[in-house]
């Protein structure tokens, strides 16, 4: 088993983060090629590559670009670098190890969609990654890769950084737009979609960091070459953030369609210590959990994981060993979603709070058997009823944890302690 390095081939070289180092390995040659192409041809190439949004939703990128109005209205290109889905730390390595790849991808994408202004929205805690991106922007401006008349082509594109300030919801594209507009990061009702009415009500494309970086190899080698990797419906490669109870956690770029067990056992070196695999959350904390048996059947592509009732999400694979208590872990997740609900929609604001209170009453030994059903009922009522997907994201782990590990929940309620750990977790939850 080998990593496929379309994006990350040179990431281990420290000089790759500088303009000189990046150019030494072919950096900005793709931009020169792209600026000679008709913009529509770039859009078609991205469409034909089958690239899907790498932030979590997996929406086809070329199709998203196609929703922009055809006339010459000013439009914006926003890079979503608010990486916050628990388990995810992949955009961070692009910021830290290949800032120019992201910038090159953004200039190409901006040119393709007719945008003259882009922002990189980066989560506030990523101070070091932001400093690296800012230094790279400075270098790019200095040699005329950004600004007016890029490389003498008459094309203009400005790029700036905007810092978030600690809010998971700003990873949702319309929440991010609200935040960039200087407001609370509350998502906006769709339609109108951002492509029609986004940042300051202007046509806007929001793409994830990894998505924009992937535009570079797609335009460099062409859509057909990109499709040599991955599956029919999930072409190309993707970065997977592997974490939890594994020997070698880290970011791995693999072809989509790679068996999930290969990521865990080959790249990740298997389960830490002498433990056995119990469960895996395959796409960030919002993705329904898989049992160890299901893991053996799962491939890392959009359709295989959807077939197992879960999702590829952001590509964050969280490995859970058999010493872990699922009731305890669900308490960690319900706390997260109740903390991060923006409070705008009632089913989410109230629902996330209640889910958290009920799970914690079980963890504190106050649970009743009917609370398990109550959790499921509340979770089902939170699905599909709100402006954005956070409510669903909070509900899905609850439903999947209970459905697949019901015996642990029932034991906890009956005995007032964890079936696995033998203890009560009351004092461990802050």
């Amino acid at each position: 088993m080998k990593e496929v390095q379309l994006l990350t081939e040179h990431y281990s070289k420290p000089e790759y983060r500088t303009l000189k180092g990046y150019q030494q390995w072919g950096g900005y040659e793709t931009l020169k090629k792209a600026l000679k192409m008709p913009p529509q041809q770039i859009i078609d190439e991205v469409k034909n590559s089958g690239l899907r949004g790498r932030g979590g939703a997996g929406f086809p990128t070329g199709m998203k670009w196609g929703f922009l109005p055809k006339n010459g209205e000013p439009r914006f290109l926003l890079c979503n670098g608010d990486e916050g889905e628990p388990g995810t730390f992949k955009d961070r390595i692009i910021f830290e190890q290949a800032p120019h790849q992201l910038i090159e991808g953004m200039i190409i994408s901006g040119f393709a969609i007719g945008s003259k202004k882009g922002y990189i929205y980066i989560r506030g805690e990523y101070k070091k990654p932001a400093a690296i991106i800012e230094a790279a922007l400075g270098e790019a401006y200095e040699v005329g890769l950004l600004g007016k008349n890029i490389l003498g082509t008459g094309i203009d594109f400005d790029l700036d950084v905007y810092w978030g300030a600690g809010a998971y919801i700003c990873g949702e594209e319309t929440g991010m737009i609200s935040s960039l507009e200087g407001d609370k990061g509350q998502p906006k009702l769709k339609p109108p979609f951002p492509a029609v009415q986004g940042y300051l009500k202007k046509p806007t494309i929001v793409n994830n960091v990894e998505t924009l970086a992937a535009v570079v190899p797609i335009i460099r080698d062409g859509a057909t070459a990109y499709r040599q990797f991955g599956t029919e419906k999930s072409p190309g490669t993707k970065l997977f953030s592997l974490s939890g109870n594994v020997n070698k956690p880290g970011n791995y770029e693999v072809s989509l369609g790679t068996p999930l067990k290969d990521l865990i056992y080959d790249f990740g070196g298997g389960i830490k210590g002498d433990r056995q695999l119990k469960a895996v959350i395959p796409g960030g904390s919002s993705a329904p959990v898989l049992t160890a048996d299901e893991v053996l059947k799962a491939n890392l592509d959009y359709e295989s994981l959807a077939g197992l009732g879960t999702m590829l999400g952001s590509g964050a694979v969280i490995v859970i060993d058999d010493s872990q208590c699922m009731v305890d872990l669900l308490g960690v997740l319900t706390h997260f979603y109740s903390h991060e609900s923006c409070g705008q929609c009632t089913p989410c604001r109230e629902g996330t709070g209640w889910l958290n209170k009920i799970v914690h009453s079980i963890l504190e030994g106050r649970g009743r058997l009917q609370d398990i059903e109550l959790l499921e009922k509340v979770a089902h009522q939170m699905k599909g009823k709100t402006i954005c997907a956070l409510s669903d994201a909070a509900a899905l782990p609850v439903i999947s944890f209970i459905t697949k590990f019901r015996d642990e929940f029932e034991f906890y309620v009956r005995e007032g302690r964890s079936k696995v750990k033998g203890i009560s977790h009351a004092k461990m939850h802050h």
Partner: protein
Amino acid sequence: MFQLSEEGLQKVQTELKRYESRQSAVIPALYIAQKENGGHVTSEVIDHLSQVMDIPVSRINEVFKFYTMFNQKNVGKYHVQICNNISCVLNGSRELTQHILESFHCKLNDMTLDGKLTVSSVECLGACGMAPMMQINEDYHENLTPEKAVEILKGLK
């Protein structure tokens, strides 16, 4: 009364011109003011920003209250934020948190008496593969053990 320094005022003015809309400068301005006010934001800070930015108090206040990186009460010289989300919990972050609290005789979110430390438990900071971790002011410290974390904190001046 809180007042921005000459330099801080300049920075806020620059931010007001940096984006398409002046309102976009509120988040950067809150960062600037928080730093000058020693790490947290008060209603005086908001009033002052409202005046110099010509943006209503309510508009700044709702933004301030929404984001977790703006502190509503005073924090120590070193704000220690320990991630206690799932990947970190799987790797012992709660035991690490407990060990730190016991070693420095403090409670979560309460500043130590000497004003040096405030320890908080926070959500995912994007260091899941390097768990457990803590952020001290702006810096990440990763692949920690409880002992290593306490050693780092004891070394702070």
